[in-house]
């Protein structure tokens, strides 16, 4: 009913103690409220003067208000705990994201992670706010009321006691039946509800195929189909609420009839009878409240599981094994990978048995067909992925992985589409070095060949770029990433992952002219399937299905006439016209 992990949040015990206390007071007020309303009514029934009901009505009023004040008070006492807990969860979540790095995003999906941080934690907040109060209410209120009724008239109390598990029994039985049916339909269901968005997204294609007009009928009929299926499920799903409703309402009716007979037989007086009748709905109320919010609690529970799952993940340790050094990389520094295996899941390695040495400011080309593991290798070199086996030695220090604070300060990473932050152009260029002077930023932008473009921007360096703002073409995005490298001259290692694959050839030519000068005095890893870059490299790793099948200088590989030559000729295609 209540997730055990909730009890691990600090401060919850205090909340539970207070809530319990207030719930007991509230139950007593409910009984008082029923009793004195009945007293007033019975006085009137006995044809006594209206003046005699003043006192009972005042007590009723006080009890009634007190009861609802308790609700406010309970919320007021619980909220600070809930608020600080969810706030802490959000901050822990963000910190965890940073520590886990992009691999967790790759695994869970961007949308999923964002939803978790935003709506997921909102749901947890609703859950926490609700669950403690509801469970305590269910655990305390009906039983206090029942004890009070038993003190007046044990027979009716017995009936109420017996009917309680019966209602729950029926609710569960019907609920399970509905669940089973709903589960069976869920797959088809989901497909139908996604169909609409699917159709909207595919509209350009429909238009190209000339089906756009007639597809409207399809949209309607699929939606009608969806309605019929939904209704079939709802008809059953709602029976469990119906059962609850049916038994509680009917119980009240039965109690009323019982009491009527008792009164006729003179085994009970009007006042106790009326009190019991007034209290009966309040006896069932906690259960009804709990059932009504059942789905919200379920959502909250699932969200809690998802968020805690992320929070409990292990973060890479030993992030400071590699000592910091200035400069971060010298012509004599070396990097060794020795029989390294890397994979996204534990028992399946994407990269197998990778071994190579690089020294100083070498230019290392990484080439291979798509799916051969080029990006995985770059992600290992950047420390986003940790090896499962093998040894890495950087600058003479053996490290378990390259997720080293000192290592990450020594390289610039330029992927196929560099991410541009929703910020000004200046902040994007100075992302690694926010303290850089405006002159330095302008200088870096100039060297990256951005000056002409910036001159056309309305606000120059202050122009907002990134998602939802001004569009930046692929070539310009690459240049902005390059400007980052120019600006932070201390980073001596460059990791490129297909930087030009999607650019048109003329843009690529221009960009290459800007890029080549940066290679000087840098250790470069360049993964690509654009062959002409290989001419600028002095060492080449040929990847195939996660293994290094050949490595050496271009001349060596050419002479070997092996995998490299084969790959090149396959990529080149037919001979020139």
């Amino acid at each position, binding site marked *: 009913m209540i997730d055990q992990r909730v009890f691990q949040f600090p401060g919850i015990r205090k909340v539970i103690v207070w809530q319990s206390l207030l719930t007991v007071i509230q139950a007593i007020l409910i009984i008082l409220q029923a009793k004195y309303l009945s007293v007033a009514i019975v006085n009137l029934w006995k044809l006594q003067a209206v003046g005699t009901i003043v006192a009972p*009505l005042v007590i009723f009023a006080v009890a009634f208000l007190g009861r609802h004040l308790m609700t406010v008070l309970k919320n007021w006492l619980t909220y600070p705990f809930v608020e600080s807990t969810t706030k802490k969860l959000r901050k822990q979540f963000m910190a965890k994201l940073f520590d886990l790095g992009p691999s967790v995003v790759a695994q869970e999906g961007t949308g999923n992670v964002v939803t978790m941080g935003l709506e997921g934690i909102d749901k947890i907040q609703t859950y926490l706010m609700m669950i403690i109060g509801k469970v305590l209410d269910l655990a305390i209120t009906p039983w206090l009321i029942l004890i009070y009724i038993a003190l007046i008239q044990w027979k009716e109390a017995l009936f109420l006691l017996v009917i309680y598990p019966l209602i729950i029994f029926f609710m569960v039985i019907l609920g399970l039946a509905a669940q089973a049916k709903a589960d069976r339909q869920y797959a088809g269901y989901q497909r139908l509800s996604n169909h609409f968005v699917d159709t909207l997204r595919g509209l350009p294609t429909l238009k190209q195929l000339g089906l756009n007009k007639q597809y409207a009928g399809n949209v309607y009929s699929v939606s009608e189909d969806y309605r019929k299926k939904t209704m079939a499920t709802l008809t059953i799903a709602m029976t469990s609420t119906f059962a609850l409703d049916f038994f509680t309402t009917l119980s009240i009716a039965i109690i009323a009839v019982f009491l009527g007979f008792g009164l006729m037989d003179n085994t009970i007086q009007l006042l106790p009878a009326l009190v019991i009748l007034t209290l009966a709905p309040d006896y069932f109320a906690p259960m009804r409240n709990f059932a009504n919010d059942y789905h919200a609690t379920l959502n909250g529970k699932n969200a809690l599981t998802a968020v805690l799952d992320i929070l409990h993940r292990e973060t890479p340790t030993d992030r400071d094994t590699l000592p910091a050094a200035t400069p971060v990389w010298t012509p004599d520094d070396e990097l060794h990978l020795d029989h390294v295996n890397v994979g996204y899941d534990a028992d399946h390695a994407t990269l197998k048995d990778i071994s190579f040495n690089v020294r100083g400011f070498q230019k290392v080309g990484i080439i291979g067909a798509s799916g051969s593991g080029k990006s995985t290798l770059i992600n290992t070199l950047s420390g986003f992925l940790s090896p499962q086996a093998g040894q890495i030695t950087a600058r003479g220090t053996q490290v378990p992985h390259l997720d080293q604070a000192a290592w990450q300060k020594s390289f610039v990473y330029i992927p196929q589409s560099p991410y541009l932050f929703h910020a000004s152009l200046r902040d994007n260029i100075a992302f690694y070095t926010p303290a850089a002077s405006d002159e330095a930023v302008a200088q870096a932008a100039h060297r990256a060949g951005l000056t002409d473009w910036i001159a056309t921007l309305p606000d120059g360096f202050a122009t907002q770029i990134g998602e939802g703002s001004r569009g930046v073409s692929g070539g310009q995005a690459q240049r902005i990433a390059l400007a980052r490298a120019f600006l932070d001259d201390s980073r001596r290692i460059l990791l490129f992952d297909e930087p030009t694959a999607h650019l048109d050839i003329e843009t690529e030519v221009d960009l290459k002219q800007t890029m080549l000068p940066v290679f000087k005095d840098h250790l470069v890893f360049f993964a690509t399937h654009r*062959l002409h870059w290989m001419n600028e490299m002095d060492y080449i790793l040929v990847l195939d299905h996660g293994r290094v099948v050949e490595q050496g200088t271009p001349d060596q590989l050419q002479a070997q006439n092996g995998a490299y030559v084969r790959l090149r000729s396959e990529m080149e*295609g037919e001979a020139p016209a």
Partner: protein
Amino acid sequence: MKGFFKTFEHDHWVMPYLKRYKGLLTLVLFLGFMTFFCGGALMFNSGYLISKAATHPFNILMIYVPIVLARAFGIGRPAFRYAERLTSHNWVLRIVSAFRKRLYQSVEKQAVAIRQKHQTGDVLGILAEDIDHIENLYLRTIFPLVIGWLLYLFIVIGIGYFNWAFGLLMLLLLGIIVVVMPLMSVAVNGKREFQARQVQRHFYTRLTDAVLGLGDWLISGRRKAFLGQQDKPIDEIARLRRSDHYFQWWRNFAIQFLFGAAVILLVWWAGVMFTGNQAQANWVAAFGLALFPAVEPFADMSQGVSEWPVYQDSINRVNGLDENVPQLAPQQTVGDFADLTLDHVSFTYPGAQRQVIKDLSLTLHPGEKLALLGPSGTGKSTLLKLILGDETPDSGQVTINGVPVDQLQTQRAQLMGVLDQQPYLFNTTVMNNVRLGNLQATDAEVRQAVKAVELDDLIGGLPNGYNTQVQEAGSRFSGGERQRLSLARILLQDTPIIILDEPTVSLDPITEQHLLDTVFDVLKDKTIIWVTHHLTGIQHVNQVRFIEDGQFDMSGTPQDLYHENQRFRDLYDMDRGR
């Protein structure tokens, strides 16, 4: 409140449906009312029943009617509630079907305009969500509100029947609960909701930004800055939620307070009214208890209404959709394709300064194959839009057999087929997807098309063969395979002109080579306009044109260009890795 009426002033999405499905709507409201009526009547009847019984009537028959009624109301309430929930959901889903069709048609008519108006974000997802919002508007706001008001009127009239002055008092007192409180909720929440949405959007952008740029954050080593920039929106969200909660607690308390006052007044009034004799006094308990079941629907009204600002946004958005529907020019048809001509075409996007296409002329005859190259932003995609008739030139004309293309839009799918960067595969079977090219095609024809694009082995080898689901956006298949399936679709469509809009941009060179070989092999009889970003496979065409700044720059056959043009030769060699 002004916003409320303004929203519905030009509304044609919410109100018309309330009118159109009047019968079911009335039924929903009736059932909803009966639910709460039975709830109240059960307590009313029970109060009377035990009071009457307490007078020890000489015969059980004297309380027989209330006993039967108690059971009837006891069964009636859950039964009506069940029926109401089913009917209302059915009603709403029926409307959703109509909505979806309508939304589809609106989007269909102005797909281009919508994408221009809402630059980024998943506008289609948002629109689909809007429909869900309107669904909830009915279920959570309109129905509870109207049912609550019916109940309110019933109570007031019922009491007014006995005593009009007291009825008037109840009208005012309960009126605060059912009219003033909801209004206040909208006013207070509306403002807060507006703020909340801003803060939330801000947090959302920041969070997405952080998640997408996580790699760069990690490399930058700026952990503190990363955490710091989230703090402010997190605190602000917490603050807004807090005030939201506080408001709800006290509002609900106020509702209970007023309600308690109404109960006390009712008991007092019954005490004054029904104490003439014992028979009359039996009604006191009935009135004293009857009101309690009404508190739940009354409290729900304020809660439902406070969700209004969310719905308002959605209603405005869908209503805004139908404005400025572009008008289609009078349509014609042409016979067999003879030529496609661009005659001194110029084009500038509305509101933009820069002319994208400058005085371009071009003629293509059946079977000719043209490759278009040029850096991004030079007008390649615009040129394709002009050829397809999605945009109309400012001056000059695009014609097929002498007829301007904007007059050929109904015939367009018979004239031009398109293979673009990411052709869409619908979440259905392979067979259905390919058949979209020609709905009349037989299974054998579909198989033949798939064979032509060299996927027959792959598809045949799948456990479900041609009935394999392609999954969302075709994710079951690789990029190259998706392109081939779309190509099969185009083969079935069998148009004389084919437009290839960078179909290989996201493929690796080996896949790209093979795909282009297939494309030009199966389409060898067609007229092809191929926009490409580099020179792989350029030997397949008989004409190459480079666009630079809206004008043709280099042009000629690939062979001539290679031999005579140094720049082309450099680009070509570079593309081949030399």
